[in-house]
């Protein structure tokens, strides 16, 4: 790269190396975006969408959040309604058999929280007045903590629950426990 010959007309004056670099940059950009798009729409790895809204001050009076917990809607398919509040999750434990597909609905009556199930693709911001929803299939037996990932007040660090993925449900575990 050396001094360019004296020019007198206005121009971008793009160096050949620079032009190649720009082409490579655009290529990388398009490639990455293509991969993300493929993961999103072909593989179905999606982010939360705009769901229903609720009134945070009355959500526990009626409707699905009046009874937080797990409900089986079809064989191997569950819905979990979770309330996150200062400084606990209701319920604190969700017990599902391995292979279950669980659609998780979370909201908060007080302030913002986070809901992240470790080692899964479930990661949601919990905003009062909004319902966060994602679906996940638990393919492995084990304990998956769900933790609060947004500062919500002084007890934030203690706020967590657990998904127990078990071989088979015992009768009393049905629906998860609620405190």
């Amino acid at each position, binding site marked *: 790269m050396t001094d360019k010959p004296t020019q007198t007309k206005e121009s*971008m004056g793009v160096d050949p190396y620079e032009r190649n670099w720009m082409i490579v940059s655009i290529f990388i950009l398009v490639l990455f*975006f293509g991969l993300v798009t493929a993961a999103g729409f072909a593989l179905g790895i999606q982010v939360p969408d705009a769901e229903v*809204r609720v009134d945070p001050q009355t959500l526990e009076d009626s409707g699905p959040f009046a009874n937080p917990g797990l409900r089986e809607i079809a064989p191997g398919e569950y819905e979990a309604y979770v309330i996150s509040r200062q400084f606990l999750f209701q319920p604190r434990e969700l017990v599902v058999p391995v292979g279950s597909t669980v659609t998780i609905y979370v909201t908060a009556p007080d302030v913002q929280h986070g809901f992240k199930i470790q080692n899964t693709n479930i990661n949601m911001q919990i905003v009062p007045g909004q319902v966060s929803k994602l679906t996940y299939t638990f393919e492995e037996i084990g304990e998956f903590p769900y933790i609060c990932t947004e500062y919500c007040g002084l007890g934030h*660090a203690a706020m967590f629950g657990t998904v127990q993925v078990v071989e088979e449900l015992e009768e009393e575990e049905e629906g998860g426990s609620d405190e």
Partner: protein
Amino acid sequence: MTISAERTGYQVTPEDKKFIGWHIFVAIASLLVGSLFGPLQALEFSGLDLYQYIAPLLENYYQGLTIHGVLNALVWTTFFIVGFTYLTTVKGLGRSLATPRLNRFGFWTMVVGVFTTAVPLLIGEATVLFTFYPPLKASWAFYLGLTLVVVGSWIEGWGFILTFRAWRKDNPGVRSPFIAFAGVINTVMWQIATLGVAVLILTMLLPWSLGIIEATDPQLARTYFWFTGHPLVYFWLLPAYLSWYGMLPKQAGGKLFSDSLARLAFWLFLLLSIPVGFHHQFVDPGVPSGWKFIHAGLTYGVFFPSMLTAFTVIASLEYSAKQNGGKGVFGWMKALPWRDASVTAQLLAGILFFFGGIGGIVNASYNINTVIHNTTWVPGHFHLTVASAVTLSFMGISFWLVPHLTGKKLHSPKLALAQAWVWFVGMLIFSNAMHVLGLLGAPRRTPLGQAPYVPEEWSGHLLRVSIGGTILFISVLMYVYLMWKTMRGPKADPEDVPDIPVAESIRDPQLTPAWLDNFKPWMIATIALILIAYGPQLIDQIGNIQLNSPGISP
């Protein structure tokens, strides 16, 4: 220092130097106070909770974290940037400001704002972190103080814009000097970008904290916040870019590689900084995923001017090094002035930013973002950007700026060089550990030393956060000591006082196409793109506003 002492071009007036100096003074004082809490947070990760020893002065981790974020990310940056933009405007245009009284008013508005914010922060009435998401409720004074800081920065910005326009009128057809041009673009971008947070505070948070309205809409608040929140990072970054493009080549003994592409990059940052805010809201419930996807695409767009910057800055450095005897494909790097603390700090800042940029692509990537959202990866990332690319560059700039403003010599160039390297090493350790913890699922904003769900396998990384954070704190102390001793030192022989490094471009800037020096088309495009990317969602979210979250004071 290798900075030439010869005086070239316009000399900034003593009054202006003093006034700019006050900006830098407030900035560094804020950095010092804000950084005091850094090691408290970092050490907590290893289970060493020092907050219990400073109670009741400060009550808890979150209060310290809030002060750390507000002072370091908002006050240190804003004051440094406004002061530095003042300098690049008057130096670049070769004239004093058209509106000196307006700028004094703006500055004092910002100072009053900082003190108004500081009171509730220190007495524990604003422990809401630096994103202050409602419905966690802070004292009204916190919101008012932040408003005054932003409004003060607007007022000072008007001074820069009016001065630029006055220069333009007197110099028709002449390409604007690059350093003035770049500073004014950042100023204009800031004025547009902060409309989001201004609307949030004035229509929702301030009336709510004063009891005029009962409750908030937290989802709409997040959308307003992130309208400002992402361009905020470019507001921090562009002054560092200004230095890398427009000053660093001169310090390295060379020239700017391409004036036209440098300008193109700044225009693209103006165009693309703002309509990308939903990528901070990928996991939000109240935003349709289609809009998140559109913003993901636009965020990838910002990758392009970043790549332009990487090329032009490195090419300028290579050109400079080869002018000074550097040879080889990579060997030229050895010919850069690594003994010059100001240059080295900025080169190290650039290297750290390289890693920050790569991590940033993960953040921008729609569904891949799910892995790291709200984890320690995110503060790990922004300590490479705002706390390295920006802060370490500003430290490097101040190694010539503070001597220049005060007419002193840099207290100890060797200590300055060491300070930059200590920062670099501390940040590599700290930031790497934070990124790894994030991938393992560690939540951000959380005192992990007391969290019950932390598995044993995290402990080594938590310890590295503590070590890295402590090293960074030592570097801050070295920096503040240097600045203090420089400021208090004896007046130097004018020959020994560094001048403002202004890089020429290899090609005459007059050859740069006129459309790269004309605000009008770029402003129209910027506003149009914002309306396209934000308009429908703003209409929808504002139209369906539900003020039903009364909130709680933490």
